[in-house]
């Protein structure tokens, strides 16, 4: 197998007495979608935050693009090529959809300290931002205020902003939540394409999407990874069925 882009090695994190991550290890190799599933409160978002640099693990290491990034902050990891989307949309609500996408393009350009030409009239930024909006199907909403978008559209914009970064790896926290059937179909199609541009660590509750997309699945329960394997292996795993999938069939 190819060299992993992202490696989580023995990561633990506690909030007081609550062990949100317990000796978690997983990796992400080029070309794959690695789904991370688990019940509510299992610690999926906590793990994502540690991968993104928003939380420091109590123990363990995180390697990205061949570097130990455990001590690096969000900004540095983003600059190394980590493209993250949030479970709870983190968008500039007063800005237009296009402005949010432009911000991503600006981050990707690496030259945010420009003071004269309007961001909206910068052809490079515009091209990059509009291409990302087009890809997720938000072109028509480009001039809308982000606060006027529906919940699902905001989720989609999260993905578009990550796209503008052209990252080396995507880390997505429940991008399908609230999308509705046609929306999640479209996003499923997009993620399927995207994995060839950069591998995706995908936290998702939508099992149809997970089973359709994932090359590998890791199951997190009470902060611990109880199984990692292909879709068939996970579906067949008795412990997973008991702990998580049980209620589904």
């Amino acid at each position, binding site marked *: 197998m190819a060299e992993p882009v992202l490696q989580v090695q023995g990561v633990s994190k506690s909030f007081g007495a609550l062990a949100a991550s317990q000796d978690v290890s997983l990796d992400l190799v080029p070309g794959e979608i690695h789904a991370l599933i688990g019940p509510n409160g299992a610690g999926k978002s906590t793990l994502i935050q540690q991968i993104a640099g928003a939380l420091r693990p109590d123990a363990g290491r995180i390697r990205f693009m061949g570097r130990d990034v455990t001590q690096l902050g969000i900004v540095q990891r983003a600059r190394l090529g980590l493209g993250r989307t949030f479970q709870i949309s983190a968008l500039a*609500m007063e*800005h237009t959809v296009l402005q949010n996408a432009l911000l991503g393009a600006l981050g990707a350009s690496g030259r945010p300290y420009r*003071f004269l030409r309007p961001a909206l009239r910068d052809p490079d930024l515009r091209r990059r931002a509009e291409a990302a909006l087009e890809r997720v199907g938000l072109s028509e909403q480009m001039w809308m205020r982000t606060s006027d978008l529906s919940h699902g559209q905001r989720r989609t914009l999260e993905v578009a902003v990550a796209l503008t970064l052209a990252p080396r790896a995507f880390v997505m926290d429940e991008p399908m939540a609230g999308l509705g059937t046609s929306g999640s179909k479209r996003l499923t199609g997009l993620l399927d394409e995207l994995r060839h541009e950069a591998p995706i660590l995908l936290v998702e509750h939508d099992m149809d999407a997970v089973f359709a997309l994932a090359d590998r699945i890791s199951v997190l329960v009470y902060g611990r990874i109880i199984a990692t394997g292909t879709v068939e292996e996970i579906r067949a795993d008795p412990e997973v069925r008991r702990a998580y999938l049980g209620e589904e069939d």
Partner: protein
Amino acid sequence: MSREGLINLALGLGLLAFPLWAEWAEEPFMITLSTRVAILALAGVGLNLSLGLGGLVSLGHAAFFGIGGYAMGILASHAQSYTPIFEWPLVIEGTKAMPVIWLVAIAAAGLLALAIGALSLRTSGVYFIMITLAFGQMLFYFAVSWPAYGGEDGLSIYVRNAFPGLNTLVPLQFFLIAYALLMAVLGLAALITRSPFGLALDAARQVPVRVETVGIAPYRLRLIAFVISGMITGLAGALYADLNRFVSPAMFNWQTSGEIVILVILGGTARLFGPVAGAAFFVALEHLLGGVSDYWRIYLGLVLLAVVLFARGGIVGTLAGREAADG
């Protein structure tokens, strides 16, 4: 043109028309009041960059206003007494040339803002307000206790500083200088607001983590904004001292900081011409009520309360409605 654009045009032209009328009506004091409006508006435009766009509530902008004032006072007092400021390692003379004074004021305020910002921007919210306030007060006490430049009595400059080709003692001519600088800086502020930098700064005010996630450090954006903001307010300070031909520690006082904050909020936070509307309102109220009662600030406080409670967008925001989305 958008509604806000029309309001801005009216404010810009109104601020020019009023002193022209005063000149015709032979009311020189009204020209001086207009100059005061232009200069306070300039200070507010400076603050608006950090407060409005950056969301940084600084209660210490008097530091920059004051240092601009003292830059003018120190340079001009040495020029009028024909004593150099330094003789070693090289001789530095004072000057009465406005452009030189402005550059020194801008540079001094910028350096001060860099130092204050580098320390205070590591905090946020109430702590940021308190730290900026503390820095402002430190400079106030320093100015009070520094006898070389007048201590608490301040410094008087006998003749207004010079600008090539103009007679700055003619009220209308000095007004035009202040007005031209205000318009130039407003143009700059408009550019910055729409620039990539302004976009990122505005986003960092709304959701800092989003900006970090695209690989841009909010701290850097804010520090740059704070320095530009301080430089503009410093320039206003130099003009203000020139208007009064007097500098004193009062320019460094927290009340000065408070007044700049108030006029920005009154006019409309983050609105380009908000500080112009706010300064005009402030000076008008001060002029109309200041004569009636020494306690005119109570009325100012009531107006401010009303704005904060019922008209969050201030004067410009209330008249113009929601901000134009295409910024």
